[in-house]
């Protein structure tokens, strides 16, 4: 399948909770192929979630291995079906953007180390412990499955070094 068009907010599917995948059949295999093609096609894209191409199912793909920030520390191409974060540690800010929310970025806090459990593309239960940029990418894509955009998680208008609370 060719790469699909990335849907842009305010498309309603982006704010919907996605349904779990009941069984891994041909339809899901084709969805996964579409997601991977879409990710490969997007300039510098390191992940795509199913709702971004209009499918409200809990499937996303991540691959940070070709990115500057992720090339040293990654698990290559991850196909994640019904993913769940089973452990999360640490917190760090990163300025994020999203193909579904063009021309805007903001500071988002994410766990620095996460363990995520999911079914892989062939339906096997898998568990990955990711850190750094890969962990951020996984959390960003998984948020899409809950209808959460990075806009919902912005914690600071600016650098965070100038919070007014500290200003007396």
């Amino acid at each position, binding site marked *: 399948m060719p790469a699909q068009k990335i849907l842009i907010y305010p498309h309603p599917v982006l704010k919907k909770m996605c349904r779990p995948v009941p069984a891994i059949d041909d339809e899901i295999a084709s969805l996964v192929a579409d997601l991977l093609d879409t990710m490969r096609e997007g300039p510098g*894209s390191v992940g795509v979630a199913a709702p971004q191409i209009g499918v409200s199912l809990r499937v996303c793909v991540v691959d940070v291995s070709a990115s500057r920030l992720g090339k040293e520390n990654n698990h290559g191409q991850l196909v994640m079906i019904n993913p769940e974060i089973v452990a999360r540690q640490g917190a760090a800010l990163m300025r994020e*953007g999203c193909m579904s929310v063009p*021309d805007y*970025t903001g500071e988002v806090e994410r766990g620095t180390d996460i363990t995520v459990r999911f079914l892989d593309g062939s339906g096997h239960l898998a568990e990955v412990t990711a850190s750094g940029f890969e962990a951020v990418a996984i959390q960003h894509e998984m948020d899409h499955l809950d209808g959460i955009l990075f806009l919902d998680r912005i914690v600071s208008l600016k*650098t965070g070094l100038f919070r007014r609370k500290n200003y007396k």
Partner: protein
Amino acid sequence: MSECRKDNLAHFAVTIISKDRPGIVADTTEVLFRLGCNLEDSSCTMLGGDFAMILIVSHEKPFTKARLAEEFRLLQERTGLNIHVRTLHDDEICPVKEEGELCLISVYGSDQPGIVYRVTRALADRQVNITDLNTRLIGTVEEPVYVLMLEAILPDGMTVDDAERLLDNLKKELNVEIGVRTITPVSF
């Protein structure tokens, strides 16, 4: 917005600096709303005991600066808010798209004259474009510390290390800490 050129709109820059109190934004935007203006872009923050607003406002043509200024004059009579309006020319409306690396440059150390000037002159001379900047005086009365934080886009070909080296002499000369780190947004 990818398409920023809107020939049917008149654009204005509106600046307001007023003693801080709750309601400044509401008072100002109420006027804009009533007139049918669009708030296209804005940056507002507390500065000292003032609240400062910088707004880019548009309205469908025909619409004059005089109309906007008159409404703001009436607002000033009611609320004391002092508002300045300037007409924007067509070539000021679209944001300049730059491709280089976005950096945060932090500068801090004992307060002294010239920190902002010396740092920004060094950057300007190498075509580093500042996109955001704020400063604050912190520390104690005995030992005031000046903090300058700025975001800038490096010109094509300049790396974070280059930028750091560029400021290295100033670091020694002014005896301040200077750090450069990339904050180029990650896109998913």
